[in-house]
């Protein structure tokens, strides 16, 4: 390595990896939780989780969006379930997710700020 630019390139590549290990975390960060109980995994939650985690890091958003998994949410028939907690806003629950839908949610909701109504809890007609 002979230049500061090369150093910066390595830093940019690694930073999103390291950011995941921040202790306090940004209080304004969006928390995205994927249901990863047996029911969730069986319904295909793992590709959803991996897609979200990868894309967040790829786009350099790991300081703003935290992707974690949780146990059974209780609505096994609607798995894979993804819940989005945004500070100061109501929780949004997406159901029957897959990798493509997750990608769309990331772009339109997590980055764009518009809830993707087609995939939310309400879309199932459940009251």
């Amino acid at each position, binding site marked *: 390595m002979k230049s500061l630019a090369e150093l910066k390139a390595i*830093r940019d590549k690694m930073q999103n*990896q390291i950011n995941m290990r921040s202790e306090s975390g940004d209080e304004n960060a969006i928390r995205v939780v994927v249901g990863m109980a047996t029911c969730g*995994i069986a319904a295909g939650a793992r590709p959803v989780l991996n897609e979200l985690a990868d894309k967040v890091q790829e786009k350099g958003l790991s300081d703003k969006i935290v992707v974690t998994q949780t146990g059974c949410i209780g609505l096994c028939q609607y798995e894979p379930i993804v819940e989005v907690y945004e500070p100061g806003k109501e929780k949004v629950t997406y159901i029957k997710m897959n990798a493509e839908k997750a990608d769309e949610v990331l772009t339109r909701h997590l980055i764009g700020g518009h809830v993707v109504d087609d995939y939310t809890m309400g879309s199932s007609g459940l009251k």
Partner: protein
Amino acid sequence: MYRSHVLVCGGTGCTSSGGVEVYNAFEKEVKAQGLDKEIAVVQTGCHGLCAEGPVVVVYPDATFYARVSPQDVPEIVSEHLLKGRQVERLVYKDPTKDGDVIRSLSDTEFYKKQVRVALRNCGVINPESIDEYIGTGGYEALGKALTEMTPDEVIQTVLDSGLRGRGGAGFPTGLKWKLCAPNQADQKYVCCNADEGDPGAFMDRSVLEGDPHSVIEAMAIAGYAIGATQGYIYVRAEYPIAIQRLRIAIDQAREYGLLGENIFDTGFNFDLDLRLGAGAFVCGEETALMTSIEGKRGEPRPRPPFPAVKGLFGKPSILNNVETYANIPQIILNGADWFASMGTEKSKGTKVFALGGKIKNTGLVEIPMGTPLRTIIEDIGGGCPNGKKFKAVQTGGPSGGCIPAEYIDIPVDYDNLASIGCIIGSGGMIVMDEDNCMVDIAKFFLEFTVDESCGKCTACRIGTRRMLEILNKITDGKATMEDLDKLEQLSYYVKANSLCGLGQTAPNPVISTIKFFRDEYEAHIKEKRCPAGVCKALLNFVIDPVKCKGCTACARICPVNAITGELKEPHVIDQSACIKCGSCMSTCKFDAISKR
């Protein structure tokens, strides 16, 4: 890309409690459950809470697992990493909060009050990966110094930050560099003192194990500032993990061109070599260390000439401690004002302390200078175990003194501690409770300095030995008050007549314990009694005839047959035969034997 990182502590503390096996088990299990593309298993440096090792932290949720064994690993992998359910029984419980389950690191009393500058990467990055260090902003300070600053500006920044040497003496680091910079020579040297020798101190080891690149980067910056192209890290051979990680780090830095010739295309050359110390305490002293690097017997030499003028191989040199260096890149990046905003008027920044002895949370803590001792002992350390009363804390190892309980609210910085005859030293803090005898503590440290005196100065070589003999007399109950006066006199004589820091400070533990615990010395001498019940020669084990059931258990365990008595009748100890081993006391089921 990984969705979760598992950080397994690979510091010396956790390695000795089985951290390596836990790391291997994670690698194997993650692969076995097909998660190796999703989960990164990383071996890090010390997290600080060594008492609870092996420590495992899972991100992004920052779950803190304590005392993990390889058998627990499959459960953590299948439950937590796959299904997202924390393994409750292994999550760290805060002893200061009646065993409340703690979800993440920052919630614990232990971490909440800490400010991590020198330790900022310890336990966070993989010390064997230069990429991870760069990911946290590593080597940017070197880039900034080389491309945007003149050597004088670098020195001025360090000077303005108020950083003082973390090895013990507290000499302003910037001033040290400033004194060396103008001296002309064909070669100058930058040295790093990693010969951490104080009993109970392990700050530098943890920095080297957890964040070796920060020291390498800082030494290159120092080389640029004073005009040196060669550096030496003098590290004790007793730190095998630190040495291994330093070697890896130096190789990686060379490969990336961050050490070597024409760094960042600026024409600046700098390279580093390791020198291993054989473990002599005196080699932590500046001039002795340089003599040892030269390949000679490690003995101090008179100053002046100071190393800034005539140091290693007779060339102008600077020597700083590991922790001092670990602060430098942060100061260059964030500016002198940022660093000077932490701490007290004359002691800036933060200091790492190694907590040990009678304390619940044994481990490594970093706090701003000026934090009250009470915060360190009670909030972060969790107080003395088993509800015992805090008596004193020994700081600065064999060169330091003790701070008694009545000074527990003293703000910890260089000048406050000096005002009560104590020093911060390198940062070892050994906590003592009511069961510790202060005469015995003074004896322990003096035994150490008697062993470690290099023998060059008579005052230190023979003086400390005579002092130890008097202390032995006191703990044997054979001393008079005259001996105590002689001991004090001798202390000042040894201090005044020794060449280097070892002899000049060796009597400190004695002086300080006499100053604060004179009553304990007098109890040993006048009443032939050890108030804490430690000094064996002054103890008598006695059997309470009321409580004794005559079970004969004590008589059977006594190695010298000093206990006699009939079955079902109270037993008696023959004091002249008793060797005070204490076996009878621990054997008795009826609590009938006591020390007096």
